[in-house]
């Protein structure tokens, strides 16, 4: 299917690729429609004067507070692997990556 190009140039296929999400045709249509509407709503921010304003990554300036570098008790292998979808010989199994 050809990508639809909106006023906000949303290439839905590109975004899905960046996000590594497989979408069904129905989901693609739903998301296209709502993103268009939501991005239009976001346009109101264009009217705000942000000249010389610093961006906030957090609500207030917070600097990393480092703890002492002490050796703790890490998970043992069994615990670390207990949630792996597939495992063998203390390793996670994934599809072949290198030919």
């Amino acid at each position, binding site marked *: 299917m050809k990508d639809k190009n909106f006023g906000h140039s949303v290439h839905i296929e590109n975004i899905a690729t960046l996000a590594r999400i497989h979408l069904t045709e129905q989901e693609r249509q739903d998301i296209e429609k709502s993103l268009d509407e939501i991005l239009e709503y976001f346009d109101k*921010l264009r009217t705000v004067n942000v000249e010389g304003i610093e961006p906030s990554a957090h609500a207030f300036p917070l600097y990393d507070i480092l703890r002492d570098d002490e050796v703790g008790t890490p998970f043992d292998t069994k615990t670390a692997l207990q949630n792996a*979808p597939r495992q063998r010989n203390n390793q996670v199994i994934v599809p*072949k990556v290198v030919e």
Partner: protein
Amino acid sequence: MDSEIFYKSASELDSLLDSGKLTSVELTKAVIERTRSIDAKLHAFISFDEEKTLNEAIQSDMRRKTGEKLSNLDGIPVGIKDLISERGQPLTCGSKILGGYVSPYDATVIERMRNAGCVLWGRLNMDEFAMGSSNENSYHGKVANPWDISRVPGGSSGGSAAAVASGETILALGSDTGGSIRQPAAFCGIVGLKPTYGAVSRYGLVAFASSLDQIGPMGRSVEDVATLFHVISGHDDKDSSSYPVDKTNHSMESVKNKRIKTIGIPSEYFGEGLDPEIRQTIEDAINFYKNAGHRVKEVSLTMTEYTMAVYYIIATAEASSNLARFDGVRYGYRSERAKDAVDLYYRTRGEGFGSEVKRRIMLGTYVLSNENFESYYLRAQKVRTLIRNDFMEVFKNVDLLITPVTPSPAFKIGEKSADPLQMYLSDIYTISINLAGLCALSLPCGLSSDRLPIGFQIIGKPFHEHEVLSLGYEFEQAHDFKNMHPAI
């Protein structure tokens, strides 16, 4: 024994447990029995482990008997929103993608509740990855509002709110990124606190938007919420955004101590779109404070109009990054249909995430993409600075703010689910508090003509939880809303 033991407050229960008239096992069984009898209608729980929970109650009874009570919450059941890690228990985030996942460690809040002797009761339902305002987005089913089961309980901590309101638990933990504790608390007629960013450790909380997320307590009285907040708050080495705050200033004595305050009423929060019954009910609450001797003045928060857009840019951007970890490799669901390693990511995420989560990941990915970064994400971060400055300016002249929590009482299931933007707008009064890093309390102040709860919001300066709790406590003492229960 009173047949409605599950509706008593934690403070009353603490006295009963102290006196020996009640055991934690009896209390825990009452809560389990209540859940068994009504949860088919509410669907507030995703899972619970009766044996484990009762064992914790037995331990608590032994401590009380030997005079080794750990805290006023020793033996009190607390439900956990299903995105907070409790060692050995499942954690789903309301998503298919975490199917089968069992937490290998305790969140800091869980560790602190264990140290206080709390009975860690079941895993509470929620919108998938905390994305939603109605609890209709859970893979494990919609939650119903106990006041009217054709209506939503709010979200994303909808399971927590419904369970507390209906006596399926005494207290609960929720999390709040844009209103997810306060809005469901208002819809279900209970009390919920969104602590200041940094007041409660996020270690062990599954991240949605890391610069906005906070864990907070939900209960049926301000005192109960304050008591649980005291247990879970405080600096934690495991969370670099946790703040070294002094816990003594939000002790119960401090909360119960009335002080005359200057309360600001932001006019922008009482404009178009606010339900007239809610407006009237909150004006009555404001008059109560005036008559009690507090100073009340109108203030203006000029950036209010932009908060929704800023929030949905920042929250989705952070979410798209945080949720990249769910890829089917190390834990949770994995698609069986993948052709190769990269296809494994596409299929697992395509099959594992629900539609609202996909929409937000897509939106977040879009606003972070190279060509849009400056016009959306960076701009939103700058406007966030202006929103915070707006509040800080107002807080030079007032101590606290009072606003609505929601524009309307609980809406019908299905009413807004087809229109994401309308759904997002139901958070209009709560999101700015997360963006500005403030604390806020949602507490009941009346019932609508349809007998649906109405709540109001008290907003405080960063790390001034004791002030919002104190003002809420004063209102609660003069009214009887904490004994108002749904007819379920």
